[in-house]
């Protein structure tokens, strides 16, 4: 198609005529220029219908050309809901309108437009809820609703994130924002100024209205801003949200930048607001500012013959801009009964343009097919009511409206600004700003061009002074002489289709009906009508909704108030929020050794741990069984470096440990270790480990792998709170730890250390410091698996050397590494509990069979008070060991299968495993006390519903006398 609506070259235009861009829309071929948006290129080519509306599938065209409406929402390959008004044209784009069925023109769903009377506001609440049919209706609704389509094969987009800092951030690079930036930077502040448009200048670049001086002034500011060493100007980027302490999300099309400012100036301007009249949504009915953007940014003639609806000086200025660029202005219709003519109006009058005051447009007359404007029906307008008797039609192919503005105060609201309705400017303006937040220009209710520059200067200076640069200058900003916003730009029509919210297809009567139904405050009205809940989030609709509500309930807009504006200002793609998505994975120093030995890794929190070591021609269970056998009969080695490893030093170290663990540590001998159980304040077991005393005032202790981070954090918190004379050091990552276990472990260790390993010199539960394979090490004679063994802790950097030395020393004994699975079974054979598996969020140490560790006579420990109370109550449950009947042949119970007694839930299996050494299924179960008696049987219900009998068995199942780990072989 030809560029038949393109104007001759204009100074400052954003398009690059040297680069033409070919693209497709709805299967048709189009051409535009670099710098065009999708909408401007289509409009230039004469394409008026850009999309269809959400509910009634009405044709829609350019309306704000500023992302304040979503009339032009498109599917572009994998990208959905692409906003045509502000998306730059790219070569080869293949676009289609979202939410049509079979194309923009065909779209059979447009029949909904004729059914609209059946579908009043909230109609879906009033029917379709028959129980049987609702699921089908829901399908229908879901298919009809929704906009674009997600393409399920879209790959994950990895995007960078950036961080930035500045003294003063200015949001909006229009005249007031530029002035603010200069004022702040001149006072010495380092300034960042951002603007969502491709180029800076804001309204100064397109709201010319016959006064080129405004543009020149704006350009002059811009030149100074660009040249200023302390100002960074960023365009094509929007402030998506304001968060506590001036933390701002800046979003461009490639990434999110998180910026921390010391002060923020909001100079975001205002959104032009539509007039509400019948068919005000027809393609060809545009906002004045949209017409100006088309002309001055993209050199596109908005229409041939226009009727201009206005209620302020801006409207007359738009009319001038139109005339200058070859649009015939058929008439100017002013809603106001009286006003002071502005300069533009005088000029237009001199040109002989037809003008009507106290007049409104009652209806935009559609072309046949309803895809454009054929005329405007105007009528006398007094006290907010049109006089139908005076109606007359003016032919035109476009209607331009400029009846008022609403502040772009979204970020101000997010920052916690209190706004007040100003009767003079007929809009909400900031009343009380939070510390460090400033506002200027139109968002602050200042419209006069010169006044905006002064207001910017004032705010910029104040912001700089707030963060310590210079003195706050006193700048007096003249008060507005007249309001740019008309208080009631709304015209009723018996046949409706006078739209308030274009995203949601809400008409004037929808609001009347909603209020009639009792949704008569702004929040309820919003929720019932869904006004402002569509993709443009009320930018073009909230103000009119508020005015309508105020009138319906006979209140002042001030009393009606606004709804809360939450992030985001414009929607943000999930990929940009997500960024690259890092997943820290922790590996112990011996990770590569494990891998080389065939480890099959599992995750344990952030850690990677060998679950077992795979062997050729052997399945998982066989491998695990061999690992178990090696520990029981020879020697095995396991990496336990993921345990939490803490050290506490200081005169009150013992006392601290006595407070946080249930056992006693003051009497622990130097060189000895003791099992440690930790409870929370309610007496519930939360962690366990081993505490070793290295000196009077020095302990080394471990926590579970999963608890390590939380326990260290909690202990640090308590230490801060209690202010005891001790300090805690977290060595979790700094130390490697290896458990050498099995009857041959001492012989293996003896080959690499000179420490006296005799039972007398290094008894069970002792800790020794010494060298192993030349590496300084701490060795503890403890073990979860119930064999003679050593837990050896060394600096992380020596972990590999220690591992290699032990493996080499053990090779004559057939040493093998074992993984978490073998360890789980080994410990189960010993009846050792795993906190979090054999206990849950309510288990006390008494219930878990750990009562022996609890020293109730200590002066204090966390959970003590609760345990004192619990101890007096009858016990509710108890952890017991059990065995299945040897004869059991069917499927074995699994962990968390229930114990059923007399038809009621009486417990659950917490651990179970097949012990080939004991030749039986063994396990632990949390059961009610009556089922916990020795030799008692109970029934477990497995997944298929059948019951399996288990018998309570004392633990340890294996080596009940504990000979293996304590006595010399």
């Amino acid at each position, binding site marked *: 198609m030809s560029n038949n609506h393109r104007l001759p070259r204009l100074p400052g235009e954003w398009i690059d005529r040297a680069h033409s861009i070919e693209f497709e829309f709805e299967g048709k071929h189009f051409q535009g220029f670099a710098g065009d948006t999708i909408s401007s290129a289509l409009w230039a080519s004469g394409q008026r219908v850009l999309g269809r509306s959400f509910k009634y599938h009405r044709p829609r065209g350019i309306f704000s050309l500023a992302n304040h409406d979503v009339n032009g929402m498109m599917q572009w390959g994998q990208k959905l809901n692409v906003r045509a008004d502000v998306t730059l044209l790219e070569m080869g784009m293949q676009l289609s309108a979202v939410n049509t069925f079979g194309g923009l023109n065909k779209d059979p769903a447009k029949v909904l437009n004729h059914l609209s009377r059946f579908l009043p506001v909230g109609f879906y609440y009033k029917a379709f809820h028959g129980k049987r049919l609702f699921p089908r209706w829901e399908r229908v609704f*879901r298919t009809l609703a929704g906009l674009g389509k997600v393409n399920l094969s879209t790959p994950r987009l990895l995007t960078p994130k950036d961080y930035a800092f500045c003294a003063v951030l200015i949001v909006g690079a229009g005249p007031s924002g530029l002035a603010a930036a200069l004022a702040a930077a001149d006072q010495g502040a380092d300034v960042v100024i951002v603007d969502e448009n491709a180029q800076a200048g804001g309204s100064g670049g397109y709201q010319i209205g016959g006064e080129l001086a405004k543009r020149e002034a704006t350009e002059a500011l811009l030149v100074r801003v660009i040249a200023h060493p302390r100002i960074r100007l960023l365009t094509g980027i929007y402030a998506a949200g304001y968060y506590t302490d001036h933390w701002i999300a800046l979003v461009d099309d490639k990434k999110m930048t998180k910026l921390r400012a010391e002060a923020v100036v909001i100079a975001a301007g205002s959104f032009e607001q539509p007039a509400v009249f019948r068919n005000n949504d027809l393609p060809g009915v545009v906002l004045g500012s949209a017409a100006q953007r088309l002309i001055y940014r993209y050199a596109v003639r908005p229409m041939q013959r226009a009727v201009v609806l206005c209620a302020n000086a801006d409207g007359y200025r738009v009319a001038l801009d139109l005339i200058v660029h070859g649009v015939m202005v058929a008439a100017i219709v002013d809603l106001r009964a009286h006003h002071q003519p502005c300069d533009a109006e005088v000029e237009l009058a001199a040109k002989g343009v037809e003008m009507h005051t106290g007049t409104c447009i009652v209806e935009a007359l559609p072309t046949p097919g309803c895809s454009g404007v054929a005329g405007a029906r105007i009528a006398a307008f007094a006290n907010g009511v049109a006089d139908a008797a005076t109606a007359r039609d003016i032919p035109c192919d476009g209607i331009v409206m400029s009846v008022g503005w609403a502040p772009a105060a979204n970020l101000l609201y997010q920052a916690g600004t209190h706004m007040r309705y100003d009767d003079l400017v007929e809009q909400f303006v900031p009343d009380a700003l939070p510390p460090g937040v400033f506002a200027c220009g139109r968002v602050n209710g200042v419209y006069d061009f010169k006044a905006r520059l002064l207001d910017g200067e004032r705010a910029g200076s104040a912001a700089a002074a707030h963060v310590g640069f210079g003195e706050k200058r006193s700048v007096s900003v003249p008060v507005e002489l007249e309001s740019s916003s008309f208080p009631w730009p709304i015209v009723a029509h018996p046949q409706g289709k006078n739209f308030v919210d274009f995203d949601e297809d809400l008409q004037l009567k929808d609001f009347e009906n909603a209020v009639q139904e009792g949704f008569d405050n702004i929040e309820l009205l919003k929720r019932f009508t869904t006004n402002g809940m569509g993709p443009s989030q009320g930018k073009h609709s909230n103000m009119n909704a508020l005015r309508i509500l105020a009138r319906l309930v006979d209140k002042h807009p001030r009393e009606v108030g606004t709804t809360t504006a939450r992030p985001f200002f414009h929607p943000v793609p999930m990929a940009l929020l997500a960024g690259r998505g890092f997943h820290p994975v922790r590996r112990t120093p011996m990770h590569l050794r494990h891998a080389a030995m065939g480890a099959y890794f599992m995750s344990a929190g952030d850690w990677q741990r060998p679950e077992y070591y795979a062997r050729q021609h052997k399945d998982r269970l066989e491998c695990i069984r061999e690992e178990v056998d090696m520990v029981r009969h020879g020697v095995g080695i396991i990496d336990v470096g993921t345990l939490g490893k803490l050290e506490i030093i200081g005169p009150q170290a013992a006392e601290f440990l006595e407070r946080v663990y249930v056992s006693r540590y003051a009497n622990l001998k130097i060189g000895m270790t003791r099992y440690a159980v930790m409870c929370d304040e309610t007496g519930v077991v939360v962690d366990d480990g081993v505490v070793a005393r290295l000196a009077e005032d020095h302990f080394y202790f471990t926590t579970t792998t999963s608890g390590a981070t939380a326990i260290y954090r909690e202990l640090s918190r308590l230490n801060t709170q209690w202010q005891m004379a001790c300090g805690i050091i977290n060595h979790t990552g700094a130390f490697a730890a290896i458990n050498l276990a099995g009857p041959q472990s001492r012989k293996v260790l003896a080959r690499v250390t000179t420490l006296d390993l005799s039972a007398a010199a290094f008894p069970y539960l002792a800790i020794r410091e010494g060298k192993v394979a030349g590496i300084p090490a701490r060795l503890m004679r403890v073990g979860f698996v119930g064999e003679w063994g050593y837990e050896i802790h060394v600096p992380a950097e020596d972990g590999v050397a220690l591992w290699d030395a032990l493996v080499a020393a053990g090779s004559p004994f057939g040493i093998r590494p074992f993984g978490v699975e073998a360890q789980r079974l080994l410990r189960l054979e010993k009846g050792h509990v795993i906190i979090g598996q054999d206990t849950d969020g309510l288990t006390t140490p008494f219930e878990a069979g750990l009562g022996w560790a609890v020293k109730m006579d200590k002066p204090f420990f966390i959970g003590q008070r609760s345990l004192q109370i619990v101890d007096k109550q009858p016990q509710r449950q108890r952890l017991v060991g059990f065995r299945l009947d040897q004869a059991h042949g069917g499927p074995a119970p699994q962990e968390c299968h229930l114990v059923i007694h007399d038809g009621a839930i009486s417990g659950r299996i917490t651990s179970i495993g097949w012990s080939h050494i004991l030749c039986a299924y063994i396990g632990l179960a949390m059961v009610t006390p009556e089922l916990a008696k020795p030799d008692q049987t109970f029934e477990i219900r497995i997944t298929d519903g059948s019951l399996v009998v288990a018998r309570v068995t004392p633990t340890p199942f294996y080596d009940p006398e504990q000979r293996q780990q304590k006595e010399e072989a």
Partner: protein
Amino acid sequence: MPWRLLRFVTSGKHPEPQMFTHHDGLKKVYDAVIIGAGGHGLAAAYYLARDHGMTNVCVLEKGYIGGGNTGRNTTIIRSNYITPEGVQFYDTSVKLWQDLSQDFDLNLFYATRGHYTLAHTDAALRTMRWRAEVNKHCGVESEVVGPEELRREIPMMDMSCGGHAPIIGALYHAPGAIARHDAVAWGYGRGADQRGVQIHQQTEVLGIEVTAGRVSGVRTSRGFIATSKVLCAVAGSTPRILDMIGVRSPIYIHPLQAMVSEPMKPWLDPILVSGSLHVYISQSARGELVLGASLDPYELHSTRSTLDFTEGLAAHMLELFPFLSHVKIVRQWAGMADMTPDFAPIMGKTPIEGFYLDAGWGTWGFKATPVSGKTMAHTMVTDTPHPLITGFSLDRFRNYALTGEKGAASVGH
């Protein structure tokens, strides 16, 4: 098109009556005063009037109907809890839900979509088995499903979760549902209103009169009301009301946030939760993705939003569904969740006679709206806790008789 919509065309005026009556002022005396016009307060009022004929009742709301957590929640309805008390209680609620649109003659968009809780670890799978077993025992449909079934039912999901947290199974709960939250409050509100209950919006409770250990009245921003029964159903504001009468509770407030995408054509039917990734997702009838995560990690009495919440949530969601990369988030918000140590609610009587508490709804109370209304109405009328809520009494914290729901309620809501 249903015939019922014909009336909008045949009648000249909008044929719908007012949902909520306007009252000129407060009466001097009510038989019962309910604080909070969230779902819970309104439901209690509705059942008081409908089931017990108690209609000289008012509901006081400092803001507007449903403006608290009711209007902010992500509407997951399910009964696959872990304690038998919990399962029976929420199952009763689910059954009430299923008939609620009919009861109200208002379409609540109650949509049974099925609910999956994904397991990425052994430990998670173990807890799911526990839940499935308890659920089945209580007659609630729940089962542990394996990766094959997940691949079949949710074929677009990346089972490897970006390669770092492979999904090994899930708890499937067929009755899992979502509903239109605001409509629930309106339905209960309208039903109560029609039966004579007075709802007073923009009326804040400022104090509670207690005489000799008994409630005697309520001080409000619009005057004093004499009454002998007060129900406190204010979710995130519970500590403030309890302060007024000097009753201690273990409730602590954390913000809970959520976000919603632009609408898109339907691609996701069930509700999906991943406890390990701390995220959940459903697609509303409008086509929006409703996305949430776990609680903010610290106490705060505020409904502010944070950026890091959206970042973390988006990152994890893209691991499950990489193809959402271009989907845009329009809005985020927060509510104040009234948390309890055992993740079960606090319901019933209090040390102050005539003062009834319905609180501790944390991140999970929307689904309980019908059953809490019903059981609290019963409790208020008979002055004895309804049998379904005896496990939820305030006393349980004193008596160490907690109802541990943490395993089933932390991310799952």
